């Protein structure tokens, strides 16, 4: 059993680690070493020029900043909206809960590409096209259904006795939510925040359709510009920029993961 687990772990590490290793190795290769028929696992002399070229590329830092704050704000709004919504959906009985959960579930059936054209037309009409606020609303909308389901699971795990105790003590529904539910579902909120942040950070569709024009571009659209026509491209700087673009999400995950685990333990309750 232990051997099987070790084999599984090794396979898992290779499966997910190899592409990442290849990306880092490519970012350190010279252009001439990339794409050739000779397999170079790792360059004998790592070349850091791709990193300076990636950072020096026009618009990339502005795009990185746009991605960072758009992802942070969108993730924050998603987290704030999700918690009470999930509480309401988890606690409600009857038609409202069924209708809401059914609607949220059915909204996931349609690919987001399907909604882009109508949304684009609406956005142009109401003046939200090419605005950061418009993009944030979309990011939140696209993140919300999955996050709601995610958070609903955490809320459902909160023992009803605790909620009852709060109400017996005279707390209103909002107070129960604020002082009882929120602290207990903090691990869920962290998961929602991480998910929403990464999802927004990696989103290409919203950025490319709704944020046109150089100064509003995000990192994903900037990264795509390293690839040219007919398979040509600046693959070294592209790999370097991609490696750099992973750092914020990685840092966020490392920082919040500790908090997540700590809260998961401290939030545990006996019913």
């Amino acid at each position, binding site marked *: 059993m232990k051997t099987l687990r070790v084999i599984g772990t090794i396979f898992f590490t290779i499966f997910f680690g190899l592409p990442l290793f290849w990306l880092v190795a490519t970012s350190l290769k010279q*252009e*001439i*070493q*990339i*794409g*050739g*028929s*000779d397999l170079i696992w790792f360059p004998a002399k790592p070349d850091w020029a791709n990193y300076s*070229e990636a950072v020096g*590329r*026009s*618009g990339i830092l502005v795009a990185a900043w746009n991605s960072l704050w758009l992802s942070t704000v969108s993730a924050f709004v998603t987290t704030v909206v999700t918690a*009470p919504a999930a509480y*309401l959906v988890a*606690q*409600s009985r009857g038609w*409202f809960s069924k209708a809401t959960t059914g609607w949220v579930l059915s909204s996931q059936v349609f690919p987001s590409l399907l909604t*882009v*054209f109508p949304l*684009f*037309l*609406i956005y*142009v*009409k*109401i*003046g939200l*096209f*090419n*605005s950061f606020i418009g993009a944030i609303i979309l990011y939140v909308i696209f993140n919300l259904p999955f996050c709601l389901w995610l958070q609903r699971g955490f809320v459902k795990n909160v023992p009803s006795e605790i909620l009852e105790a709060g*109400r017996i003590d005279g707390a*209103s*529904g*909002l107070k129960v939510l604020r002082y009882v539910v929120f602290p207990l579902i903090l691990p869920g909120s962290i998961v929602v925040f991480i998910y929403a942040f990464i999802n927004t950070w990696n989103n290409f569709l919203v950025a*490319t*359709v709704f944020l*046109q*024009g*150089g100064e509003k571009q995000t990192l994903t*659209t900037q990264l*795509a*510009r*390293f*690839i*040219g*026509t*007919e*398979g040509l*491209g*600046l693959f070294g700087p592209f790999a370097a920029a991609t490696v750099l673009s992973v750092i914020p999400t990685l840092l966020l995950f490392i920082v919040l993961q500790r908090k997540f685990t700590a809260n998961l333990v401290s939030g545990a309750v006996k019913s």
Partner: protein
Amino acid sequence: MKQSRFNAKAKLLSAVAIGAVSIATLMPMQSASANSEIRFMSWAWQDTHIAVLKSQVAAWNKANPSSPVKLELVDEAGLYTQLSTGFLAGTAPDVIDTESAAALQYAKSGYLYNLAKDMRYLQKEINPGIWTTVNYKARMFGVPWMIEQYMVVANVDLFKKLGVPVPKYTDSLTWDELRALAKKVTTADSPGIGAGLGSAAKLTMVMGPTVGAKYYTGITTGRKANLVQKAPELEVVRNFAEMIQVDKSMASKYVSSSPQTDFLTGKLPLWFTKNSLANTIDLQSNINYQYLPMISGSGGAKQAPTAGIYSVSAQSKQIKNSVKFVKFLMEAQNLAEANIAVGGSIPGTTSGQAAVKAIKKDANWQFLMNQGANLTTAPFLFVEQWEALKGSFQNPQARLLYSGKITLAEYKKAIQDGWNGLR
């Protein structure tokens, strides 16, 4: 009790929020594109090209402060997404740097302004074949600023080492002569010639006119075109396949990897590539290189490339100034700078080609610029199903053929079946 009151409040708030969003959605507001700026969208991706475009836009803005241009750079996929949505909602950029084959769909829908009258002064400078390429039903949907042909480039030092003379620019070169030459320079260490065969359908079709290939007959501007697959239409594909399987002068590894590195590291004697890679060879290697004469078959030496074009949106509120800006971009010096920055493509006008020759005195560049006359209209360009046939059938089936997994007859059948399915 309190719980149910809270639920009621929440339901009310939800209803108010939904109502507010609905009202906001229905409120007509001013479009985002209602300013005096000319939006110029380009898919330029090379740093050198971006720098040239920026400097040209800056020069324009200095001379024309009342009609400033804003350069917007997008990736290839993003360009077409933004154009499709933009034309639909009336937010498309005013001037678009795109490619003639891809722009055709927008031209057919009437989204691109007819430049025929405004660009008439350039007609005598533009190759007639390319002029036809950028016109659809007597409407000129773009003006060609760059043209890419396929050429064979030789590593002169490697040829010397192998004791094989490099054909002179003035010599002729048939497909059979190219194959014989590639065999001569093939060694145990390296194939004689390399070509990027992963998506080579366009390459083979651009080269098609050199062997008299027609590819389509009938009304080729609609869905009623007929696919032709006789000996000339299969000849270029057959040549590549036989170089791999019979002559052994080309390696099938180039189906999945580029020969560029092998050439730039001095291993590969011959490289079948686009002319816009001259700069790559100049900048990335110390290779002493020379272009071979243009390949000439039973149909001559003419190739049928698509063109990089500047188009103007028919929805633009500033068509006059946009056209003026395109005319500025089409000035000989600006064309020369852009084409050199791209890597060595051929400017769309003869004056642009002359301007490159004045800047780049090197024999290879001079030879490149002389090929502006060796062009004809792509016979496949206006066929509606061409892009689908190329992507879904020609490229994948050619990969199988070059890898030796299917025969030429099987390739032909698969393409015919694919075509029948698309019609």
